[in-house]
């Protein structure tokens, strides 16, 4: 049963990845793209989790730890940059 579920979840996550990439490409403002990037990271962490279960190897979990931390730093950095007067229409 778990194998079927893993495949279904891979499918769901791939769809989510494509959708958030649409928002990343379309914008229209920089904050929109930042939000899309953040969701991309969440989905990537989800992918890593599902892959860990599918392959029974936990090596990739460390990547998930680092990703979840750096995504936060990136969001804060972008917010600072915006408030200090960066361009906002790209």
């Amino acid at each position: 049963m778990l194998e079927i579920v893993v495949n279904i979840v891979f499918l769901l996550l791939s769809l989510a990845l494509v959708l958030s990439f649409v928002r990343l490409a379309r914008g229209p403002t920089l904050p929109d793209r930042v939000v899309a990037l953040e969701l991309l990271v969440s989905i990537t962490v989800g992918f890593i989790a599902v892959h860990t279960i599918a392959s029974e190897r936990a090596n990739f979990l460390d990547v998930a730890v680092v990703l979840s931390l750096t995504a936060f730093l990136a969001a804060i950095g972008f917010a600072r940059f915006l408030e200090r007067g960066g361009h906002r229409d790209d």
Partner: protein
Amino acid sequence: MIELFWEVVTSALLLIGGLLMLVAALGLVRMPDLLTRMHATTKAGALGGGLTVLAVAVHFGEAEIVARALAVMTFIVLTAPVAAHAIGRASYFVGVPLWEGTVKDELKGRYDAQNHQLHSSDEAAESARRPDARPPEH
């Protein structure tokens, strides 16, 4: 029997997590303005990521993997609202437009563009804008 139980729990967590992330991505595409998009992504996205990682912890049940999975979960769940606040504030500050269906905006005009102060009422914002105004105390 016990193994089957844990397998069901893992599958359920994975499915709910995946569905939540799909909902988040759908909301990201479908919602009309930035703040409503953030409603969809920050909660459903973070919760979905947290649940899939929790599924890993349940599936393996070994101390070192559980510890790492819990670390990822805590990071995601703790940082999501803070990042949402930072981006929401910054986007409002630079004037990203709100959706035309927005019914009310009590924050409008209360930011001070010069010194990044946020006033608590329209009167305070007005008096700070006057030329003879004293700088706000911290």
